[in-house]
């Protein structure tokens, strides 16, 4: 069976004696090395063409209204209802078929972590973020972020996240660099990413 064949080949390739496992040098800036700077996050998100809104908790619905007022949006099962204005028709995701989700205008979710240095939002499928499909098919994604979810660097984010959950790292709207290596927004994912940072 090929499992034994391959493992045997690899052991033969390495020969003996084998070096003991070595701890890699980690002299780079690890988790906790840097203080969070929200302005850096805003700068990096904006640089990759996400739209950033900053507001208090009571104003989330007002901002969602600005972005998605009059539209139909899918929402994860446990999105706080107070985030949604009356002007938005919310369709909760109770295992909606893909075609139904694709026909909706937008999606509103929370987030798990955000990385300031790279302008990245990470979703982990918690009930206020929902299945991966709902943030993929609609063309507008509004993501609500609490400031205590923001970390400084990638190592901070890796330390906070649970690898056993499905993770989606999002840095700006869908883009491609495939034509002459210029980043162009808008291929298959949402072409509009709004991040609401809630103080």
């Amino acid at each position, binding site marked *: 069976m090929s499992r034994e064949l391959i493992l045997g080949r690899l052991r033969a390739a390495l020969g003996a004696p084998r070096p003991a496992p070595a701890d890699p040098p980690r002299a780079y800036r690890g988790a906790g090395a840097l203080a969070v700077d929200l302005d850096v996050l805003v700068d990096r998100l904006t640089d990759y063409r996400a739209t950033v809104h900053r507001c208090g908790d009571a104003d989330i619905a007002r901002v969602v209204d600005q972005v998605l007022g009059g539209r139909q949006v899918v929402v994860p099962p446990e999105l706080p209802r107070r985030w949604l204005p009356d002007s938005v028709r919310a369709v909760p995701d109770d295992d909606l078929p893909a075609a139904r989700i*694709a026909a909706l205008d937008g999606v509103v979710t929370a987030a798990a972590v955000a990385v300031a240095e790279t302008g990245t939002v990470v979703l982990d499928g918690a009930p206020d973020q929902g299945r991966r499909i709902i943030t993929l098919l609609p063309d507008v994604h509004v993501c609500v972020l609490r400031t205590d979810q923001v970390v400084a660097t990638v190592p901070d984010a890796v330390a906070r996240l649970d690898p056993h959950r499905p993770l989606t790292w*999002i840095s700006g709207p869908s883009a491609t*660099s495939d034509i002459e290596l210029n980043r162009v927004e808008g291929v298959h994912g949402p072409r509009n990413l709004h991040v609401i940072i809630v103080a």
Partner: protein
Amino acid sequence: MTRTFLGMPATAPRGVGHLRGDESFPVAARRGLADPQLRRNLGHATGTIRAKSAAVIGELPDWAQLRAAGRAIKTDTMARLPELLEQLEAAVTRAGGTVHWAADAVEANRIVTDLVRGTGAERVMKVKSMATQEIGLNEALAEAGIEAVETDLAELIVQLGDDRPSHILVPAIHRNRAEVREIFLRAMPGVDPALSDEPAALAAAARRHLRETFLSTRVAVSGANFAVAETGTLAVVESEGNGRMCLTLPETLITVMGIEKVVPTWRDLEVFLQLLPRASTGERMNPYTSMWTGITPGDGPQVFHLVLLDNGRSAVLADPVGRAALHCIRCSACLNVCPVYERAGGHAYGSVYPGPIGAVLSPQLTGVADNASLPYASSLCGACYDACPVMIDIPSILVHLRGQAPHPRAERATMAAAAYTMDRPVLYAAAQRAAKLSRLAGRRGRGLPPPLSGWTASRDLPQPPPESFRQWWASR
């Protein structure tokens, strides 16, 4: 079958997949050299990406430390590869996935074809994967009557243009916007005849073209950038969202992964997720990275197969000098800085792995005899080593492999490579002198001149290679 036979590292078999070209590098390179449009497209594209990459690498004060960590993690990984793969297998299985082992391209193609057949599907959608190109999976599926739809914009351009990929990251890098528009107008069903050549308009056309495919295809095939042995987590790094579509929408996901892609721990991703996007597309972070561990009930594919591919990798591992080629994270930075790649184009390398990394990886996967000219497809200027985010010393491996090339063919290859280089003596001599001088200057702390200054601003410079190609040639 005896035990000793079982244990012998093996190169990738002939007659399947895309690791061997039809002609030697110098012969194939002549076509690229004779195509001024290709050279302009490549020059423009690689120039753009070098500048972007230099800028975002310059933002990180610890780039040198990240590179050192990346290299150390990969070195440790290769030293423990069999154990890590067993650990990965156990973790993926625990999380609800099924692991398959493929000794070579033939077996991998058979495994995937059987898995797809088992679902009853007649079409699969694919997210760009070097491993599946290497094994010729699309052709194998086609023989079984299964259509494989490439969903990356660049792969789509290549597929619709009936063309071959020429770059690891941007397979259609040899095409400019006007050419892409023409291909779409010719080959994309139902495309708006008024389509402009604005990249945004071209991207929108691809979005419309593939939407229905994403929503209706039940099986997807992907590669993987990383697989974490400790947790069983797979990661795919991408830009467009077609990866997310393939990893999220279908019922069945089949991931084909070279065995060298495993990393020991979850924490190791904190290194590679910083190195890869900055070296690759020149972004602080690519738009989307998906990570999944086996099956998540109610979210995404409910059937997950992981195919672990050897196909010559065990033979690469058997060479203590050459095995560093397995450290490659396929960022393509070495292509973008390579003067030979920029002039010859990716097709000249024959294999799906072009550029400097291809020149060291392909001959080792196939055995040097089958790619004897590739170790000579370099001027040993060392720019690839400077650019490589995991510090693979490509020039040293090239020199090492030249020593292994069978003698008569090696002579021929050398002659041809030399002829091609000598054809442009002024340019090459100047480039080599500049590279060598600036590398020496760099070691005194001044760094490389533009456009390479960005690379070296935060990197430690390696020793210059002992002799340049021309010096080496002259001394023969």
